[in-house]
C-alpha cells in the first residue's frame, strides 16, 4: 500500500504537474480536488489514463472514480482492491 501511495504522489507531481510541492510533502489524507491539491475535471480524466498506464487498473465509471479520487489513501485503496 505504501508503494502505491508514493507512486500516486509521483504521478501527481511529475505527470499532472501539481505546482509547489514535492511528492514526499504530500500527505496521505490530502484532498486531490477542490481545496486540497486543486486538481480539476481535466486532471480527473487524465488520472484515469495514468492509473491505467501505471497500475493497469481501469476506472470505467466516473461515479465510482469520484469516491476513489477523494484522497491519496482512498485512491490507493481502490487501486489495491482492483489490481489483477
Amino acid at each position, binding site marked *: 500500500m505504501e508503494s502505491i501511495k508514493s507512486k500516486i504522489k509521483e504521478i501527481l507531481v511529475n505527470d499532472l504537474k501539481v505546482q509547489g510541492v514535492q511528492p514526499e510533502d504530500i500527505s496521505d489524507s490530502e484532498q486531490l480536488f477542490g481545496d486540497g491539491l486543486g486538481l*480539476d*475535471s*481535466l486532471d480527473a*480524466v487524465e488520472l*484515469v*489514463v495514468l492509473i491505467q498506464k501505471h497500475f493497469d487498473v481501469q476506472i470505467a465509471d*466516473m461515479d465510482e472514480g469520484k469516491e476513489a479520487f477523494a484522497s491519496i489513501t482512498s485512491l490507493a485503496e481502490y487501486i489495491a482492491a482492483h489490481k489483477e
Partner: protein
Amino acid sequence: MSKIAVTGCGCICAAGADTDAVWRAIQAGLVNNRADSNHLFLEREDVPVFAVPHLALPAIFAEAVAERAAGGELNRTIILTLTAVAEAIGAANLTVAQLRTKRVGIALGTTVGCTFNNEDYYIQWQKGESPDPGPVHRYLSANLAERVQDILGVRGPRAVVTNACASGTDAIGLAKMWLDHDLCDLAIAGGADELSRIACQGFNSLMLVSQNSCTPFGAKRDGLNLGEGAGILCLEKEAEATASQREIKGWVCGYGAANDAYHPTAPHPEGRGLQDAVSQALAAAGLGLADISLINAHGTGTPANDRAETAALSALGLGEETTPIVSTKGATGHTLGAAGGIEAVLTLLALGSGKVSGTIGCHTPDPELAVPVLSAGEEARLSGRMGISQSLAFGGGNSALVLEGGGP
C-alpha cells in the same frame, strides 16, 4: 445595422445529403448512425458515429478542381464543404460566374480541417525515413477558406475560424460583420468537419463519448456521438438581395460571442458565457427573449453541457411553458466545426415552416434540467419567426445567432 438576408442554404450530414433530406429525416425521427468499423476508436468497439455514407465532389466544381491539380487531392472536409456550398449557391440562384463579379467573403469554421494528420507520413518521418512530401503539400493547400476561395475563383475577405465546437456559429457571425461593414457584397459562411481518429480518441479520452445513440437532454444521457458534415449559408445585404430579386429564405439578425473564462474543457456550471453571448445577440437584433419562438440548443448529450446550457437559459429568464428548446444532435451527431453551420440551416428551416420537431433520442427528459425541452416524438407550433441557434466550445467559447425565418 441592417438585417442580413439568407438567400441560400446548404447542408450535408449523416441524416441526409442535402437540406431537404436532412429536414425530412429529422421530422421522421431518423437516427442514421452506425457502429464504428473504421477504427476511429482504438480500444472501444461498436461506438456509434454519424458518418456521411456517400460523398462526391459536386459536378459544378469538377473543372475548377481539375485546373488546380497542383493543390493535390481534396480532403474530405473540403468536399463536404463544397457539397454544401454548391447547394447553397444553387438555392440562391447564383452561378459561379456571377459570384466572380462580386466581392465574396468566405468564413468557415472547422477543427479537423486545419491539422496535419497524415499517419503514414508521420510514422515514416518518425522512423527517420524520407516520406513522399505529398501530404505536406496537401496540408499546406488545405486551408478551408483559401481552398474554397480558390476553387470558386472569388476575391474578398476570408477566415477559417478554429474555435472548436462553436466555429460554425462564429464564422456566420464574422460574415455578418463583414457585410455590415461593407467588406464584401455576399458571403458564404458556415462550417465543416470530417470524422477523424484524433477527435474520436480525444473525446473518448475525455470520457465524453456515449457507447449508445446519444440522448441530448435525456435523463440517462451519458455522452455524445461524433459526426461529420457541413452547413453553409449564402448571405447578402437585404437591399442587394431584393434588388437582384433573389428569394430571401431568412435573416441573420444578431450575433453574440462570449468566453466563460472558466475551464479548458468544461462549461461554466451556470453557462455564464452563454448567457452573455445570447444577451449580446438579442441586443444586436434589437429583441428580447420574449420575441424568441425557438431555441436550437447545442445539446450534445454530455451531462455537463446540457446542464450548463439549460441553466443559462433559465438564468436568462426562460421558464415553464414557453419557448421550445431542441437539439438536433440526436440526428446529426456532434459535427464539431460543422455544427453551428448545420444548426443555423435547420433553425432557419424550422422558423420558416412554423413548426419544430422534438429532440431525437430524448425520450425521457432529465427532470433536473432548469428548463423543459421538447422531447422526441413531440412537435411544437412556433409562435413567431425569430429563433436562436447557440453553440458552446472547448476553451470556454460560446456564441449565439438570432435568426429570422422567411417563407410564405
